[in-house]
Every structure is written in structure tokens, then in C-alpha cells.
């Protein structure tokens, strides 16, 4: 477990200067993501031409991993259609969760997230934006990394 693998220069750079940060108004699709365990919040807004994402913005507060992941995702999905986004999501999900998943060229800069899988407690930080994008492309709304009743209390003191 090496910190350098998690906090690579690309990650730190995208955390410091997130790309496509902000909100599109009007937007063709929006969704909010929430990770109640660490308080991360993310709002995505998209412009679509048919099935293709022509523009994307995100805003919110989060840790370096969630901010950099959203920034990298926004660059990666621009110009892709739903099917291509879905394929990319499947690849990223494997990258984040499967120790043996290959880091393929098709991932581009997203490969910088490969260190996350060594830190199981941080996988949700990196995947929050992708789940939120899925929600935006489906019907919008709010997703949470912790499915459940809003009023429930979780965790320890």
C-alpha cells in the first residue's frame, strides 16, 4: 500500500484544478450524488445531442479522490454516447474494485485511478461521480452511496 499510488500527480492536479467545474444552465440532464459517510456531494449537469454528451459540468465538495475522479470523468465522457459511456463505466468499475483488472490504454488518463483499489475505504469516493452520471443519463435525481432511509442514523461515534 503506497500513498504515492493513490495520490498520483494527475490526481493531485485534477483536485487542485478541477476541469469542467461548474453548472450548465439550461441542461438536458442533471443528477446529484451524495456519500453520507464522508459528506461528499456532487452535482452533474449535461448537454446531450441525441445520445451523445456534448458538454458536462460538475460541482460539489469532496475529497481529492472524488474531485479528481469527477474531473477526469468529465474529460473522458465528453463526446461519447450512452453506450460508450456505459462501456467506460464498466472498465472503470473493474479498475477500482478488481485487483487483477488490467490497466488498458483505452482508459487514458483514468488509469491514474488504479491506485484506489489498494484502499478499499476510498473506492466509493472514486465511483460516486460515475454512479451520479448513470443516474443523470437514466432519469436524473439523487443517488447515495449508502442506499437507505434518509432519516436513519449510521456509523459510530
Amino acid at each position, binding site marked *: 500500500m503506497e500513498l504515492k499510488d493513490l495520490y498520483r500527480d494527475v490526481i493531485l492536479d485534477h483536485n487542485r484544478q478541477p476541469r469542467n467545474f461548474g453548472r450548465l444552465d439550461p441542461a438536458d440532464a442533471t443528477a446529484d450524488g451524495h456519500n453520507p459517510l*464522508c459528506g*461528499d456531494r456532487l452535482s452533474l449537469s449535461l448537454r446531450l445531442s441525441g445520445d451523445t454528451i456534448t458538454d458536462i459540468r460538475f460541482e460539489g465538495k469532496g*475529497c*481529492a479522490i472524488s474531485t479528481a475522479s469527477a474531473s477526469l470523468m468529465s474529460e473522458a465522457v465528453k463526446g461519447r454516447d450512452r453506450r460508450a459511456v456505459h462501456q467506460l463505466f464498466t472498465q472503470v468499475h473493474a479498475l477500482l474494485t478488481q485487483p487483477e483488472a488490467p490497466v488498458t490504454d483505452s482508459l487514458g488518463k483514468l488509469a491514474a485511478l488504479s491506485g484506489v483499489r489498494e484502499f478499499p475505504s476510498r473506492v466509493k469516493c472514486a465511483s460516486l461521480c460515475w454512479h451520479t452520471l448513470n443516474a443523470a443519463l437514466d432519469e436524473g435525481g439523487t443517488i447515495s452511496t449508502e442506499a437507505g432511509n434518509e432519516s436513519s442514523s449510521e456509523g*459510530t461515534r
Partner: protein
Amino acid sequence: MSATPLRAATGSGYDVERVRRDFPILSRTVHGKPLVYLDSAASSQRPLAVIRAVDDYESHSHANVHRGVHALSQEATAAYEGARERVRRFLNARSTREIIFTRGTTESINLVAQSFGRARLGPGDEILITALEHHANIVPWQLVRDATGCSLVVAPIDRSGELIMEEFHRLLTPRTRLVAVAHVSNALGTILPVAQIIAAAHARRVPVLIDGAQAVPHTRVDVQGLGADFYAFSGHKVYGPTGIGVLYGREELLASMPPWQGGGDMILNVTFERTTYNELPYKFEAGTPNMSGAVGLAAAIDYLEALGIEAIAAHEHTLLEAASAALGSIPGLTLIGTARHKASVMSFVMQGIHPHDLGTILDAEGVAVRTGHHCAQPVMDFFGIPATARASFACYNTLAEVQQLAAALRRAQEVFG
């Protein structure tokens, strides 16, 4: 049943190295570094005396309690009821009828909410809490509010994390039916003036519940001296096992309250027409209880008292002062919770580094801290932050560990450039 802990004090000094040897887990490494455990406010570690007491019970004395005439059942009952008497002495309660074993502070508060709250509250009635409560002292009252139509009133805190007493007095009205407050804030470390709060509430004949989860490891609690009507705490924050906790309740109140869970052990006689409930405290202990947990808790109390709560508190205060100085000198670090009277908790945020990232970097250095909202989201909202990092100190932490924390935080700043 209770094991005898080693005396930790040598001469007049507090020998922390000797205390550390009582806690086997403290000798392990994490990611190749010595463990620096600064998350005792979430759960403290157990001394050998507790581990052995539980092992001894499980190995030699276990059977179901309050039932069999056979030897093991009698031994188990003696161990369990002995633990209850140990807790009674620890809290200076009048009678063991006032000591109810629960799963922990959360269940203790839910018991009062469901039994006392649902039976006695209705529209127009108010429950008064404070803005620094843990979710466990908020959500049970919201459930009661939703079930009965009563209201939940919240006394505000100031920017240092202290309860604003003038506001508390103003919000304590003829409509107030119960006051429920933390003794020590888990997110901020604030020690609340509970004696003053209880006096003010009692002047209006309002009963008071104290959430003592964060107080019991650090301060002597005398429920009679305080005048608390209910006092709740957890075993695992006071060097005992998880899954065991205590609700102290004044006998007159407990006697007048209906049971909240039904089942075995809480009854005297059951027919399909009618059930007669058992006497206190069994009326509130349905089902087979956590005997090994109770035995472990009794051993933890023995351990705590052998070290001396005052000696532990003085040691922790030294650590807290050193941490305030060490962390205060780190540029970009802001302490969250700067009350005049604090116990053992150091919450902070660092400019440009999210608490979650801090937690990961500190973990890589072997330093365990809690990051997140600490089950106190309203506190985070009040300070306008999503989360904090929190270091909390216990009897086994050292000044060297405070410096290791500070060094790890500087390392985090290096990583983030």
C-alpha cells in the same frame, strides 16, 4: 469474577508505558508502522484484564441466567448480577434496580424514548436537546415526536462549541417535558455544565437524561450527586466490550414506565389473557442478556478505578494541551471545538486537504484517527463543513504519539504540496 489490574501509578507519577503494556493491541503495527491509536472516542481498546474476564466467564461459567437450578446457571447469574452491582457502585446509584443493561448508549436512549416518551408525551409537549448532540440523542426523539405529535426543541451552541446557557434557559419552558443532553460532545469535546442544566430543569420539575457515552471514561460520575434522572453510557468506550451498555434511571421513574420490549425474563407470569411484568430492573431486560459483556464491563470498571479516573483525566488533559499546541502551530489547520472545558477530543480541518484524505494519509503512517461527521451532522452543518478529522485520547496515549500525529499531518501537507 473481576480480574485485578496492575497498579499503573508508580510513586506519584502516571506510568503510561506500564498502562500500555496492559493493552495487547497497542504493540501491533499498521502498514509496517507502530500503531498510534487516536480513535478511542469511537471505541477504546481493551486491557488484558477485560479480555481475561470475558475469557474466564466463557471458559468456566457460562449458562443462561435467572433460570436454571444447576450450578452453571447460578454462577452465570452471580457473575451477571455481580456486574450490575459493580456498575451501581461505579455510578453511585441507590439500588441495582436502577441499573439496566442495554446494548449501549444508543439502546439506552431509545429505551427512554420509547417507554417514557411514548407513554407521557403528546401534542404541545416539548423535548429539549442541544445543537451538539450525537445522532443517538436526536433520532430517538424524532421517532417519539413522529409517534406522539410532541415537538423537539434545540438549544443552540456558539462558535467555540459551547452551549449558550441563556438560550437554554429561555427554551426551558412550561411545555418542556424532558431535557436530553450530552455530558461531553463526541464531535467537539465540549464538557457541558450538566449540574447547572439539571438544576435548571428540576426547578421546573422536568426530568433530565444525560448521554454520558463520552464522559464516563474521563470523569467521575455520581448520579445521585448530579441528580440525573437518566444516565446512559456504553461499555466499549470505557475499555469494556461492545454490545453492552447501561441505562441508569431513578427508581420512581422506571417503576412508573411501561416495558418497551416484551419477551422472556421481563415477565413474572404469562397467560394468553394477561401478563404480569417482572420487577425492576428485569422489566426492561427482555430476552437473554449479554452476560459476558456485563462481566467484561465490570472488569473494565475495576481497571479504570484502579488506574484512577482522576489520574487518567489529568494525563489526558496533558495530552490535549500538548495536542492543542502542536496542532495549533501547523499552518492552515483549524481546530473545530474550542470550548473552555474540553475532554480528550481534538477535531480539526486542514486547508486544502479534505478530512477523508487526511485520514488515509495518517493511516499510512500508522496513525488511526476518525474522519467524517462523527454521527453529528447538525454540528458539521453549524460549522459549515462536511466533516472533520478527530483525534481522541485515552489512558494509554503518550506525548510522543501527539508528536507523531503532528508529524503525520505535516506529511499530509507535503503529499498535497
